[in-house]
């Protein structure tokens, strides 16, 4: 396996609020390899967006990151950068695609100009060269008749086109890491499909690494090489995309997979995860998912589960994997997935 381009170690992020300290990220570690797409999956409040904001150095002022947290990018700890150094990294080496194309473009600036801006700033191109490159980028992200539209303003474009422009801006400086924070959530399904195809295509061309943040496992299945599932500020399971989808081990991953209807979901068989994610103002003792988990063990409410190894690439933090734990039968849909995993393993062997 290649050397990871980004290494997150023991990341903690706390927010000081009037009501107390919100522990938004509680000990998150992961690697990102060159050229791969890592999907971080979780519901709102799981800390996935805070993780990306931290990676971009864009956290709110009341965020506190303890000393032992490390974000290693090319042997530099990003957490030690000054604001000036950050400005060099941001948009240049690490770029971001935001969720809402309506608000992430400046409504008063021509789109071509907005794409050219990071080029002028980071690569010190002349305005003319930058605009020429902007035109190329617009073509690259599939904007039809780019020449005619380079002087358009954002409001003249549809949501899908605007998201393409946002992607073009992110790609302008040829970043090594692209962070996509729910890039298609605000779009219609048909547009979503187009944007996802585009992102896959572009990644193949540039061999950059993508961190893809989403709550939609359907999108993950088509996009990701590896998947990390987050819950209540922690990663609860991570592995390759096949491992997560066909051999899931954490009950939360089961819950997520089961709450999406597929073609063969019979009526009345859609299983929802009950309840609401915990408030990270007072993270529960032990496994944060326990109160919503129908497979919860007594120990879950006392002690936090460590990561149990399933394979070299696949880990899950659930006591169910402890040798002392009883064997449980996951929901039928998950059993189906496990069966498919057996088949896949058989084919490989």
């Amino acid at each position, binding site marked *: 396996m290649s050397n990871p381009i980004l290494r997150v170690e023991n990341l903690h992020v706390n*927010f*000081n*609020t*009037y*009501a107390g300290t919100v522990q938004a990220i509680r000990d998150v570690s992961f690697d990102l390899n060159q050229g791969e797409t890592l999907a971080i999956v979780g519901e709102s409040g799981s800390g996935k967006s805070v993780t990306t904001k931290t990676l971009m150095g864009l956290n*709110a*002022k*009341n965020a506190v990151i303890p000393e032992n947290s490390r974000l290693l990018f090319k042997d530099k700890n990003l957490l030690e950068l000054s604001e000036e150094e950050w400005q060099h990294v941001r948009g240049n080496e690490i770029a971001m695609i935001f969720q809402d194309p309506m608000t992430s473009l400046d409504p008063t600036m021509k789109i071509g100009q907005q794409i050219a801006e990071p080029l002028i700033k980071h690569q010190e191109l002349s305005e003319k060269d930058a605009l020429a490159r902007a035109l190329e980028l617009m073509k690259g992200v599939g904007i039809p008749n780019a020449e005619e539209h380079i002087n358009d303003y954002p409001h003249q474009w549809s949501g899908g086109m605007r998201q393409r422009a946002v992607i073009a801006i992110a790609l302008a400086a040829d970043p090594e890491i692209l962070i996509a924070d729910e890039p298609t959530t605000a779009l219609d399904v048909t547009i979503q499909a187009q944007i996802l195809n585009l992102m896959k295509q572009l990644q193949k061309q540039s061999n950059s690494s993508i961190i893809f943040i989403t709550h939609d496992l359907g999108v993950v299945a088509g996009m990701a090489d590896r998947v990390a599932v987050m819950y209540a500020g922690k990663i609860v399971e991570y592995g390759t995309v096949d491992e997560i989808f066909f051999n899931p081990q954490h009950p939360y991953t089961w819950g997520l997979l089961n709450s999406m209807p597929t073609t063969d979901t019979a009526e009345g068989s859609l299983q929802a995860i*009950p*309840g*609401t994610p915990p*408030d990270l*103002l*007072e993270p529960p003792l032990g496994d944060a998912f*326990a*109160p*919503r*988990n*129908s*497979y*919860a*063990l*007594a*120990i*879950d*409410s*006392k*002690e936090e589960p460590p990561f149990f190894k399933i394979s070299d690439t696949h880990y899950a933090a659930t*006591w169910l994997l*402890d040798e*002392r*734990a*009883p064997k*449980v039968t996951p929901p039928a849909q998950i059993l189906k997935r496990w069966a498919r995993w057996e088949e896949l393993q058989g084919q490989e062997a």
Partner: protein
Amino acid sequence: MAANTEDFVIVGAQNSEANEHISKPALSFWQDAWRRLKLNKLAVISLWFLVFILGFALVSNFFVTQNKANAFDSDNVGKYKNLPPNSGLPIPGWDGKLKEPGATDTTDPYKNNNVKQNFILGTDNIGRSLGKRVIVGLRISLLVAISATFIDLLIGVTYGVFSGWKGGWVDVVMQRIIEILSSVPNLIVVTMFGLLLGNGVTSIIIAIAITGWLSMARQVRNMTLSLKERDYVLAAKSLGESSTKIAIKHLIPNMAGTIIVQIMMTVPSAIMFEAVLSAINLGVKPPTASLGSLISDAQSMLQFYPYQVLIPSGVLVLISLAFILLGDGLRDAFDPRASED
């Protein structure tokens, strides 16, 4: 890590009471705004200052009447006139001593004129207590402020909500009326009412009534236009709520922040407006004191008795400043996006 085997028993999910639990303290919009306002020290000081001033102005009605402040001893004008502020304590500049321009030594007019009384804020050119006159002026300023607020709320908000909610041609007509009214210079309105009713507080208040609520009405109308498309207004409509109830329950509470901030901007400009009018003799009739007329009366003597100008202008500036700072703090408090958490 010494876990027992009984720890590995399936207990299942907890009941909904537990997994729907919210641990954040319950906080209403107003509590939250108050919490954020408290973080702004200047705004809090301004708030308490204004509360104190308002209370003081109310209580002062009992011990400083209009007549007392206007009355002067015509026989002893020479004895009492232009006495400097005297706290009765040896504080430099506030000890009843005066340094005439050009003179090298300070004089003590109290001793020279054989005045037993101490005038804390000094006296004016005919020997009236400046303190009492400033208090009366303050009351007039606050009266103007309160009526401006009242008119803003009563006419401005109602007009704005109605215009925005009705929309269509009603809105067009109502907005044209606002434009016509705002194009009339309010100095003309005051002069007109001065001619009709005579100069005085009443005509000032009427002038403010005619022109002061316009920007409030405009702001409220704009807010109404955007709020009436909100889903919760549609929800109330689809439940069959009447328009008046929707305005009271949904529209006005959600624009309360804007309304209050707008008031905080109207009030100092109304106070200043009154002061300017009184200073150019379109305001209160002498001998009634207003902060504006006090300043204009004393300005000819600025060189000799600067305190006669400085004291009323100081009060004027402090009140306006307090309103502006409080308004600023309130705007931040009502707009959580601008704050840190």
